[in-house]
């Protein structure tokens, strides 16, 4: 039990914060606790949650991916076009994943092989990808997405659980296993924590970094296709500034922007928490402008908790060293 608390301390903190937020909103507005509303929170977390999972992998390597919003736009318009042109849903989804993978691969190569700083490299590609999305449709949205595709990505499956929620849960579990129980995941942490020591241990640092960006591209593609199914249209302007919310969810979940530290469960909870906050403020009738402020404060507070904990553990270490 003690080991469990120690291992998942950050995740438990987010759960506690989530509980506090939900109880406060529930007391103000009991309808907040209705099953429909709770499911709604999960449902609306999916798009940002999928982006944030990919983002977490990249941040753990010490990088960042600012292209997620633009990658989402490319996938949404191209897969939209495929389905409208008559491609069946399953091949369309696979095609979308391949596009996301390739776009992520390009980011990864820029960072790992050409040694560009991740922030600047993906800042540039963010603009490039956005332009590509507009070029694909000539600026127009893709309309009339076939119902079969929409059912596949966001249809009811079991009771009120939709396919998109199940997808989110499945991707979370896969990413968790990838990070905790595979060689690849271990390398991502070690690269983010000490790239030189990892390289000197004979690890192919470049290839693992590139894969992190490519996998991020795939989760972004899944997110794009969920959005396409939900909206029924594919806008080339979709996803603008989505990277900020994805980074926020990861940061709230305890992922360190310095690299080497982070958890998928934390990111999952972070995405839910952001949405729970947003929905709560809406349910309580708070002005939308306040939502921005509340979201921002939560992020700053979450990161500050990390700082304090870092200091505390350093103090404990010092005491131990002196003793």
């Amino acid at each position, binding site marked *: 039990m003690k080991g469990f608390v120690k291992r998942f301390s950050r995740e438990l903190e987010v759960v506690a914060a989530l509980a506090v937020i939900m109880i406060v909103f529930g007391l103000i507005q009991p309808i907040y606790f209705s099953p429909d509303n709770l499911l709604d929170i999960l449902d609306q977390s999916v798009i940002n949650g999928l982006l944030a999972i990919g983002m977490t992998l990249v941040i753990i390597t010490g990088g960042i991916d600012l292209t997620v919003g633009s990658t989402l736009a490319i996938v949404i318009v191209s897969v939209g076009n495929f389905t409208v042109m008559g491609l069946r849903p399953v091949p369309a989804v696979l095609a979308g994943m391949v596009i996301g993978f390739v776009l992520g691969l390009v980011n990864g190569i820029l960072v790992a092989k050409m040694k560009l700083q991740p922030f600047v490299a993906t800042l540039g590609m963010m603009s490039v990808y956005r332009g590509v999305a507009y070029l694909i449709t000539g600026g127009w949205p893709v309309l009339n997405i076939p119902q079969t595709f929409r059912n596949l990505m966001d249809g009811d499956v079991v009771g009120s659980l939709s396919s998109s929620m199940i997808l989110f849960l499945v991707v979370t579990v896969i990413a968790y296993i990838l990070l905790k129980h595979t*060689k690849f995941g271990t390398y991502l942490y070690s690269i983010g924590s000490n790239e030189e*020591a990892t390289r000197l*241990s004979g*690890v192919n640092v470049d290839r693992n970094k590139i894969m992190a960006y490519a996998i991020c591209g795939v989760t972004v593609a899944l997110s794009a296709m969920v959005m396409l199914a939900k909206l029924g249209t594919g806008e080339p302007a979709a996803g603008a500034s989505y990277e900020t919310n994805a980074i926020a969810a990861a940061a709230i979940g305890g992922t360190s922007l310095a690299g080497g530290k982070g958890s998928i469960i934390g990111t999952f909870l972070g995405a839910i928490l952001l949405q729970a906050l947003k929905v709560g403020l809406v349910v309580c009738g708070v002005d939308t402008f306040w939502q921005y402020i509340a979201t921002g404060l939560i992020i700053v507070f979450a990161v500050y908790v990390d700082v304090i904990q870092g200091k505390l553990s350093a103090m404990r270490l010092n005491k131990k060293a002196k003793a």
Partner: protein
Amino acid sequence: MPTMIEFSNITKQFPGNKALDDVCFSVEKGEIHALLGENGAGKSTLLNIFHGIYPDYDGKILIDGKKVAFKNANDAIEFGISKVHQEVNLVTELTVGQNIALGYEPTRRGLVDYDAMYQKTDSILERLGCRFKSRDRVNALSTGEMQMILIAKALFHNAKIISFDEPTSALTDREVDRLLKMILELKAQGITILYITHRLDEVFAIADRASILRDGKFVGTLNIKETTKEELIRHMVGRDVSAYAVRNNPLCATDEVVLKVEDLCKNGVFEHISFELHRGEILSFAGLVGSKRTDVMRAVFGADPYTSGEIYIGGKKAEIKSPQDALKYSLGLIPENRKTQGFVKNFNNARNMALASLNRFSKRGFINDKKILENCMYYTREMNLHPADPEYLTESLSGGNAQKVIIAKWMTTDADIIIFDEPTKGIDVGAKAEIYRLMEELVAKGKSIIMVSSELPEVIGMSDRVVVMREGKMMGCLKREELNEEIIMKFAMGG
């Protein structure tokens, strides 16, 4: 001559290591006073105390008979004590004059008075006989010229004392001549000079007296006119030969050549490096800091590229372009800097030990945590690791225990050839002894070791053979029977 600087009972304690121990000596006004000693003898520490970079120390420093206590380097500069570093540190985007006056620009009505500034800096450059002017950009100048700027900066602050820390290590021969001439010029102008160097020729060329440190203790001050190179070296060596750096078992080197390096060169760094490593041998690389031993090892290991040369492993030509390749040839590297190159900060001991062998601990990409833990438990027992907890973060361990984790990482890969780069740097005596025992066990098992070390006692105590390097060149290869501190220092210093 009157005394300018008096060091009185200077002691400096670092965690786990006494860098300076009751050092007392004095420097006369207007002399060039050399400060000599092996790597780690305490020269740089003493200089850092003198210049206010380490404000915490015991003892006192008198300048012109008055006690001084600088809180930081700027305090010292304003007092008239400047330092010319081994690494030139300038803002290359600014002009020469702006660099000289940086932070102390003359102003008029709140704005920098560039005319006044350049007039003043130009007059200093003229006094130094420099060929460049204040308005030139620094990035167009050579290293030697940049060093002149540092000297000009000292004069700008009306320095009474200037210290030089290995000023010639990055200069060409002609630049060295010019610098030494200038230092003599400064002396003629009444400035007192403290001069740290590893090059004894320079000491005999310009210095009046030399003070020698050894293991943080003051050994003596000698008059250069009345001494010889041999006498200086004899005073520098003879450190407490550790009772632990000895071979307890008989030497076990065989005739089999496991690694052969032929004419390895890297432009501007090292050249014509050739050596053979035998199975069961400990081959050491001795030399002073800056002799480029680490660069050679990083090239052999594939961590850095090299220009030309060949590497043979087990008699076959080896293509080592990256550490990954090195691993395939069963090489291991225990790097010089544990924290930045050796272990992963957020990883526990179990993961750090397994990092280079994850292929063995995983099946179809999935890692087997149980095997990783068992591996760690095994080496924790074998190496007497403390605390004996596989979940413990390696960064929280003491230096000696962290080093054991890194050694265990390469033992886990079952590396045939392990390069130990300064394996006992910053480690307490007990842990040093344990690391020497581990090295002996490895060669007894038929592994081969290359050790880069600046600690002469351990080089002499542990090695089968020793290659001595100086400034990127091999100066000689000594057999165990020939080893003593004087001969190694003689090769290392080019005496």
